[in-house]
């Protein structure tokens, strides 16, 4: 014990001699933690309660995450207010209200183990400075705190608390350019591994989905298909790369909506373009919930919508730059 402490001090002393080098290493170690989080998320069974805090509101929820043969299943239940439940598997989402299950959304199934692509990692390094902020205790676990500070004010600062043993994300905060808390999510209780209730995975299967099992995927009426729509937005901040461009059904039977997604590795911006249907309820303008900001605007015969975990002025800037380069 004592010897290791001495060695640690010697190492620390030596590394301090090469301070700039140490700084560089710290920087990349921050991004390593991010890779660990994404890997751990898709490997680990866990169940816990967390609080989500945004805009002077606090809500408590329970999340259960189990890995089955067919990939991960997640169940999210609200613990206060009206009873809601969301079950998610391979990009398909069911919501459970009043013991009735209905499919509310579906995406193309993603890879089993999503991870940071090299391109995303380099975008992250270009646009955020990662700093290790030591250790803190969250939900009874020891956590490494990592701060990702953006180089511009077009994106938020992200602060994450990573469980040092399992690599799970125990707490995450989003801060604005004045270091004011925008939203925060933190486990208050968490069980990692061990005996976790899986009965809901089977139970959920037949309910409310006539003629289709829980594993039925690629229901073509609900899944988007890739397109090259010709829509562009030059106002997308530096470092965001296009990760998806699809046409997808939305709002029931209306005409398909074009969705283009850009990601910088920590946050994403989605652009939705659809024909304006003259619905007077369509509210133009800016709205927000926590870090998520949404901006609607009717331009000509189209309704543009931009959504992202980015500051309000960024979604506005992106929307105002949307144009079709004639395809």
């Amino acid at each position, binding site marked *: 014990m004592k010897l290791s402490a001495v060695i640690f001090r010697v190492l620390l002393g030596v590394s301090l001699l090469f301070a700039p080098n140490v700084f560089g290493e710290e920087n990349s170690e921050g991004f390593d933690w*991010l890779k660990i*989080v*994404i890997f751990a*998320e898709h490997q680990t069974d866990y169940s816990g309660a*967390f609080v*989500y805090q*945004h*805009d*002077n*509101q606090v*809500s408590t929820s329970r*999340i259960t995450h189990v890995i089955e043969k067919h990939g*991960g299943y*997640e*169940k*999210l239940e*609200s613990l206060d*207010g*009206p009873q*809601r439940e*969301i079950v*998610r598997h391979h*990009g398909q*989402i069911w*919501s459970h*209200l009043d013991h009735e299950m*209905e499919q*509310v*959304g579906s995406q193309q199934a993603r890879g089993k183990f999503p*991870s940071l692509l090299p391109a*995303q990692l380099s975008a992250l390094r270009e646009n955020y400075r990662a700093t290790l902020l030591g250790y803190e205790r969250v939900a009874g676990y020891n956590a490494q705190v990592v701060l990702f500070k953006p180089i511009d004010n077009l994106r938020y600062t992200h602060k*994450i608390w990573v469980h040092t043993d399992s690599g799970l*994300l125990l707490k995450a905060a989003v801060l604005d350019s004045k270091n004011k808390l925008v939203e925060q*999510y933190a486990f208050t209780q968490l069980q990692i591994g061990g005996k976790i209730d899986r009965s809901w995975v089977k139970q959920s299967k037949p309910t409310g989905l006539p003629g289709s099992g829980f594993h039925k995927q690629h229901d073509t009426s609900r899944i988007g298909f890739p397109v090259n729509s010709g829509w562009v937005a030059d106002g997308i901040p530096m470092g965001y790369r296009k*990760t998806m461009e699809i046409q997808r059904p*939305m*709002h*029931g039977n209306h005409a398909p909506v074009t969705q283009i*997604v850009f*990601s910088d590795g*920590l*946050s*994403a911006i*989605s652009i*939705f373009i659809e024909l304006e249907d003259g619905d007077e309820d369509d*509210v133009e*303008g*800016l*709205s*927000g*919930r*926590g*870090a*998520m900001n*949404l901006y*609607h605007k009717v331009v000509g015969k189209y309704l543009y*919508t931009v*959504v992202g*975990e980015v500051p*309000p002025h960024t979604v506005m800037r992106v929307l105002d730059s949307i144009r079709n380069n004639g395809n």
Partner: protein
Amino acid sequence: MKQEISAFMDGELFEDESEILLDQIKGSHSARKNWAAYHLIGDVLRQPEHIHCDLSAKIRNLMQDEPVLFAPRGRAIREKTRAFAMSAAASLAAIGVVSWMSLQIGPESAPRMAMQLNSIRPAKAEILPKSNDYLMAHQEFSPSTDMSGGAYYIRTVSYRTDDVQPRNNLRNK
């Protein structure tokens, strides 16, 4: 006087004439207004990127119309200051300023602003249930989903306690 100002601006007055004119301008309010107007005309003719336009008098007049506030402290004065700031901004019709300012204000004051400025929407409102489809569609592709599993779906199902139609929040039809 107007002709003299114009001539002076074109550099057509002698030095002693200029001095007399400048003294007159200093002494006379109407001459100062003419002076400003001629510069504005000149600016517009030159078609620059920015035109200097003196709004101070207009703003001062609007400020004089505002009720005088004697509220000692606390919430009341804060809100009235906001109301005053908002109306001054409205007189400039500067939507950018308005949206910036309303970001500084909590969501609870949004309806109040909407009432005062019915021509301008509250800049950052609560996301309406009918927009939840977009959040849901976005969330699946967000890196935050990779990092936290489904936990960030909480954003798409978040609600207020006065939410009267929770069922509609998640409906796709």
